[in-house]
């Protein structure tokens, strides 16, 4: 690097570094809002689905289940993978739930096995409460899952984001959830 180039970089960093960081932070915030907006649109269609931008940092586990003092559990999803392992982990915490993929090639017969949960405007009876401050997280209230049903959590990786869905199923459990528009 020449002296001119080094001095110019020092000047740029000093004078405009903050502006660069602020603009990047604004962009990140806009992207998050867009994801939530997309989720709202999907929910209006009745899928009970939410989308969230995902974290690709590498280190955190794909999902984590933590018990809360009030009897609920908090599920954190970072990547969509290992649905069976996720189901086993939820069951270990006493949650009657299964995790299944959202797939384009999934039969619509599977869809009819599910009664969707409204995720964006949950009431006191909803078994799933999304954490709007950390959209990778949801709180699951096991006592609110109807006695004759299981909670179905569905997800798909979409580009750099995740799309989630939630519902109840009775009797035969769905193996997957068809993607909207497929």
């Amino acid at each position: 690097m020449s002296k001119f180039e080094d001095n110019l970089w020092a000047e740029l960093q000093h004078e405009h570094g903050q502006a660069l960081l602020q603009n990047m932070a604004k962009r990140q915030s806009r992207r998050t809002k867009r994801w939530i907006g997309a989720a709202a649109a999907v929910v209006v269609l009745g899928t009970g689905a939410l989308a969230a931008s995902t974290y690709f940092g590498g280190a955190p586990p794909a999902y984590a289940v933590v018990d809360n003092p009030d009897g609920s559990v908090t599920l954190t999803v970072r990547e969509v993978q290992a649905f069976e392992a996720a189901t086993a982990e939820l069951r270990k915490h006493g949650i009657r739930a299964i995790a299944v993929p959202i797939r384009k090639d999934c039969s619509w017969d599977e869809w009819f096995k599910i009664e969707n949960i409204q995720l964006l405007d949950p009431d006191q009876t909803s078994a799933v409460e999304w954490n709007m401050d950390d959209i990778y997280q949801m709180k699951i209230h096991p006592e609110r899952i109807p006695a004759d049903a299981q909670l179905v959590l569905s997800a798909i990786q979409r580009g750099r984001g995740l799309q989630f869905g939630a519902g109840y199923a009775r009797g035969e459990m769905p193996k997957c959830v068809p993607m909207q528009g497929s």
Partner: protein
Amino acid sequence: MRDHEVLAAFERIYRDNVGAITRFFARRCVDPQLVGDLTADTFVRAMTSYATFNPAKGSASSWLFGIARHTFAAHAEQSAKSGELVRRVGGRRELDSDELAELEARIDAERPGRALLERLTELPELEREAVELVHLCGLAPREAAEALGVPKGAMRTRLYRAMARLRAVVDDEVEAR
């Protein structure tokens, strides 16, 4: 991405391209202070619009050359309006003697490039810029198309046409000697 990672990513882009951008202006101006100012302006614009840069839509080089073209066009327009050389855009520091000497050396080194650009004045502006970006700045035709905002498919045709015209100009000159 954390703050230091954002800055480090931009610094990589800066260091990879600052030489080529400086040479771009050194082919157009013979005043080292002005070359320094225009280079600085290009990177100030890049820094303040970095949030809009999308690597999926084009390379950092093509993005920066696009900004450099606009920076020079704005400078030329301002110069034409005021009827004199416009120095300074936004209170930049004066370069010290070492920096001026470095830039003078670059301006000197770009003499053949300036001569080529003068020959290219016969060509339509877009073709002239296409030749410069590919043959003098080292951009791939795809990147040049992104920088100029023209369809990628049309870029090769423009380049071929421009080079054919350039060859004809050179042939005419040889014949006239």
